[in-house]
């Protein structure tokens, strides 16, 4: 799932913009559902997740002249930070952006029952632990790429993952083999 997006500095800005746009399109084509889901699990708000993701996509594209090592991790972090910092588009702005190309399709009802225990366990996690756990387990990001995207040391990510894993196991009453206690 991890994607690399390293732009050659010798490319002109136009080529870089075109390449970045193509990468984002490809990324969205294959991973939109899961990344929106991941952001929803992190933020607890589907609309906020979609708004934040749209904003992150535009930012990723506007920065086409700057290399982004791990595009998916970068977009996830930027989108998550949008929500973490209290950012939220007003209803009016969201409607305006919807008119110019925002989300269009209504949410599809799922045939499966939501995993309420898991959602409750996630809500009990500190925000940073939840973010790191989702990036690792849902988006399959490595410790190194998460650390790079968050701008922290690998050890910090390992610590957060360790704590999140422990908390989730306790909340979900799972043993080391993943079976119910």
């Amino acid at each position, binding site marked *: 799932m991890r994607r690399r997006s390293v732009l050659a500095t010798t490319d002109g800005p136009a*080529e870089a913009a075109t390449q970045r746009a193509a990468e984002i*399109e490809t990324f969205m084509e294959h991973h939109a559902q899961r990344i929106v*889901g991941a952001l929803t*699990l992190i933020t607890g708000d589907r609309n906020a997740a979609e708004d934040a993701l749209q904003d992150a*996509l535009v930012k990723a594209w506007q920065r086409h002249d700057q290399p982004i090592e791990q595009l998916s991790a970068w977009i996830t972090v930027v989108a998550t930070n949008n929500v973490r*910092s209290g*950012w939220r588009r007003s209803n009016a702005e969201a409607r305006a952006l919807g008119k110019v190309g925002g989300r269009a399709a209504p949410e599809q009802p799922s045939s499966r029952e939501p995993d309420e225990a898991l959602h409750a366990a996630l809500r009990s996690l500190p925000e940073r632990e939840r973010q790191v756990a989702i990036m690792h387990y849902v988006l399959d990001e490595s410790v190194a790429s998460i650390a790079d995207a968050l701008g922290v040391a690998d*050890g910090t990510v390992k610590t957060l993952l360790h704590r999140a894993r422990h908390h989730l196991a306790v909340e979900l009453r799972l043993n080391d083999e993943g079976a119910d206690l």
Partner: protein
Amino acid sequence: MTLDDELRRRLQEAADQAGSGTAIDFSKLVNQTGGPVSPSTMPASSVSRLLGGLGAAGLLVGGALGFTLLRPDDSGGSAATVDVQQYSLYDCPDGAATGSAYAGDRVFVIGRDESGGWYEIRDPRNQSSVVWVPTGAVNPDEVIDVPVHECAEPIELIVAGAETTTTVLETTTTVGQTTVPGTTPVTTKNTTKATTPATTPQGTTPQGTTPATSPPTTPTTAAPDTTKPIASSPGRSPDTIYDAATDNVNCPETSTLTVTATDNVAVTGVTGTYSGVGGSPKAFTKGAGNTWSATFGPFSGLAAGFNSTITIVIVARDAAGNTSNAVQTSVTVNGAGNCLG
């Protein structure tokens, strides 16, 4: 099946459920804001037009709703939303109020003052000029890492022998050249007051010529800075780390230390030193506000099962060479054999 496998399975299933029906279409997003049909196939010459289209659409929508979206050439700063009902715009931190803005206004942050208490923003009513606002008045879209700027305060310049005639000159000072790559430097006007010598008959010298050719005189010499910085609130996360040979995702090998450092002028550096496990001084990096941080580790060479506590002594300094009180914090370093994760 392991615990990791089970968590991965359930979390991915929950994410796919939560994200089902997503219809964010990036190409549609840019197409309908004035761009070409497809970003991936558009001609190179269309890129700037597309960026302009996005910016223009943002300004258009923003104007109608009372805010301004990010401008395409402002990628180095951060957009922010006004968070209070009404706030004043100031010409400098703790300076004079020059106008007002209101809740919901969108502004663009391009710098901050040394204390971290003020943001330098583009004036929401006149984007070509800059103003200052208290940081508590706005809510940035993302964690801000903008450069420290000094306010271009008005300068009162007195020329020796001044008596009778006062001539007001206008000079320009360029500030903020390092703020945003690719952005036209912000220019502010400072009013410089100067006087012609009393021996010059009034009206015989063209206005402005005499002061313009006279070198300015610095009226005073600043007293030396003898105030020491203050370091406080050292912390670390995590408390316990493991030898580099541990190589286990559940056993961290580094710890991030943070400290708060302040000074009457400015803290220019923070250093942490420690003894024991092969230590040497390490420089801290400035973070938000007055926070400085550094990552210690990984350490190697500890025998399995061996435990060691290292104490890091932290000192801040300023440009005048004054050093702060020493504060310290400790981290436990365990050998690889202690990793049970």
